């Protein structure tokens, strides 16, 4: 124990005597560890951001679109075929046990006017279920009710982007906006959600009662007056997603009188699954970044080995002398190993700080989300110690097994 302390003291002395060299040797490890910390931070940040976006679209979300994927090999744009109706939505909610809510929606682009301001945006015709399914909350005002939908009331809920562009910082609730020459009273503003996983601004939207949207704004489908653009469905739990999809498919095939062997006239998409694939790819990216950065840490380790070998050669006489006065193999081994590990650990600690700073700068100036996890910092620390032991062992062993006479005689 005392001897270990002595070995550490001897090693620290040697590092202090060769300050510049010690610093240069550490540089490799500093860069390596900093790169690992920063890159893992960038990767973790990207993953976290995608997770947040997935959260923002709503949980256990399934989307039903009219038309089949395999109609002549091309899916026709939604709205081009009019196979899904409000009644389908009602039936799904009523008859599929794995479905919690089903919300029919229609959508279209419009110009919206308030005073001298106007803004091009998306209108979505929805029912009140929609905000539950999409996890929307209200920033101000109230969402419209089922009665408003039944009465085709001229009431609108604005997304934050629309509200900002038309009203600036004042509260739009109670004001009147004009859409397609129809005046709408603003019922409220949605709490902003930010970007969707596909990069769209989820707050650049106006929600209207679906009835009003079809009759007054977008115009009903010519083939089927009750046709909707999509049905948003929330399953009762993440585990029930597949079950819900099967139930809906069976129900809709029955309702649409599709014979066995014929293709569906609708498409079901598990949105959560789609976006989870993105999350996986972000995780793969962060692993890749970390792996690439680790290579530089290994290069830093080789730098340590290199300098330690030079140091052993330079200090051959010293090693011989220590052996002559009674240093055992283990004493010399420990001394040089401690030197290498100290270089690596010190470099590791500095590298962690440099990496954290770099990570902050990246998020400040490149506007990327970065995330520092205590685990990655701990791992970087342990890994640099490991690099020290691994790359320090060979030179230390070489020193420990020198022949004392030849070492003493070395010029």
């Amino acid at each position: 124990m005392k001897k270990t302390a002595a070995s550490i003291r001897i090693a620290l002395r040697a590092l202090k005597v060769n300050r510049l060299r010690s610093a240069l040797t550490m540089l490799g490890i500093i860069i390596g560890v900093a790169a690992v910390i920063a890159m893992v931070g960038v990767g973790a940040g990207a993953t976290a951001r995608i997770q947040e976006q997935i959260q923002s679209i709503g949980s256990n979300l399934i989307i039903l679109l009219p038309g089949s994927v395999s109609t002549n090999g091309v899916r026709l744009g939604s709205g081009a075929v009019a196979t899904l109706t409000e009644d389908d939505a009602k039936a799904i909610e009523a008859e599929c046990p794995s479905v919690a809510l089903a919300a029919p929606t229609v959508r279209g682009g419009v110009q919206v006017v308030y005073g001298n301001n106007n803004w091009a945006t998306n209108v979505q015709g929805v029912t009140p279920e929609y905000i539950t399914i999409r996890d929307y909350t209200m920033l101000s005002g109230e969402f419209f009710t089922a009665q408003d939908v039944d009465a085709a009331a001229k009431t609108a809920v604005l997304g934050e982007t629309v509200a900002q562009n038309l009203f600036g910082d004042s509260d739009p609730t109670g004001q009147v906006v004009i859409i397609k020459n129809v005046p709408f009273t603003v019922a409220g503003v949605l709490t902003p959600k930010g970007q969707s996983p596909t990069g769209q601004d989820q707050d650049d939207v106006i929600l209207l009662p679906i009835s009003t949207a079809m009759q007054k704004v977008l115009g009903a489908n010519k083939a089927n007056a009750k046709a909707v653009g999509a049905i948003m469905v929330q399953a009762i739990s993440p585990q029930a997603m597949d079950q819900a999809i099967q139930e809906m498919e069976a129900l809709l095939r029955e309702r649409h009188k599709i014979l066995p062997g014929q293709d569906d006239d609708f498409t079901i998409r598990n949105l959560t699954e789609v976006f989870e694939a993105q999350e996986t790819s972000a995780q793969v990216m962060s692993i890749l970044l970390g792996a690439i950065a680790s290579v530089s840490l290994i290069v830093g380790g080789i730098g340590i080995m290199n300098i330690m070998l030079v140091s052993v050669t330079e200090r051959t006489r010293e090693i011989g002398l220590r052996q002559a006065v009674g240093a055992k193999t283990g004493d010399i081994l420990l001394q040089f190993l401690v030197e290498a590990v100290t270089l690596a650990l010190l470099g590791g600690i500095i590298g962690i700080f440099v990496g954290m700073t770099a990570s902050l700068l990246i998020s400040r100036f490149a506007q990327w989300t970065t995330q520092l996890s205590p685990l990655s910092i701990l791992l970087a620390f342990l890994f640099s110690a490991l690099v020290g032991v691994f790359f320090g062992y060979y030179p230390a062993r070489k020193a420990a097994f020198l022949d004392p006479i030849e070492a003493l005689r070395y010029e």
Partner: protein
Amino acid sequence: MAPVIEIEDLVKDYRLGEVPVHVLKGISFDIEGGDFVAIMGPSGSGKSTLMNILGCLDKPTSGVYRLDGVSVAHLSRDQLAEIRNRKVGFVFQQFNLLARTSAAENVELPLLYTDIPAHERHERARKALLAVGLGGWEDHQPSQLSGGQQQRVAIARSLVNSPRIILADEPTGALDSRTSLEIMAIFQRLNREEGITMIVVTHDPDIASYSNRNIHFKDGRLKRDVRLAQPRDAHRDLADLPADRQEEESPA
């Protein structure tokens, strides 16, 4: 007193490629505990090789070496290191001090490889420096010391572990005659007062005349082994020298 060193038919060969070089060709002698022996002989006669074996830095090719009654032939690397640490002190011609390291720390070096606690290590190092007349020089680095002072630091280092034997291979080879005499005076005092067995290699018959016994080597064989009836006294000879540099002895 029982012999502290016993060697019988000691042989050392080096292999240079195919050809073996016979350096020690069968040497036998004993050294009594407390003796002061000078080993002499021409360059290349195997004096250093013998000293390395006596100091357990090297092993003989064949023959017996017993140190304190224990044969070293079958000892491991680390066991030999332990013997060097406990029983032997080395003094080299080139001092072999650690650069940029204070005198006290240089002297402490052998104690770092023992379990002696730090405060006792410092105390022993201080005492050893005092014993070679370097009290007050603890914090000086080798580059700030004269050759003679450096060699005295090396002697302090060799005796800090209270060894049975001090082995000095041409300790005065790099020093002028006055400084050499000072070194011999220290050796004589350690030998007489501490009872440490001294073995000193030298070319110089003058230096050898301060020992009790002269062993002459030639071509790896023992040529002559004489006991001196009347060894000279280094202290007295030193006192007789003109006192030209006596004031050197206080630290700057």
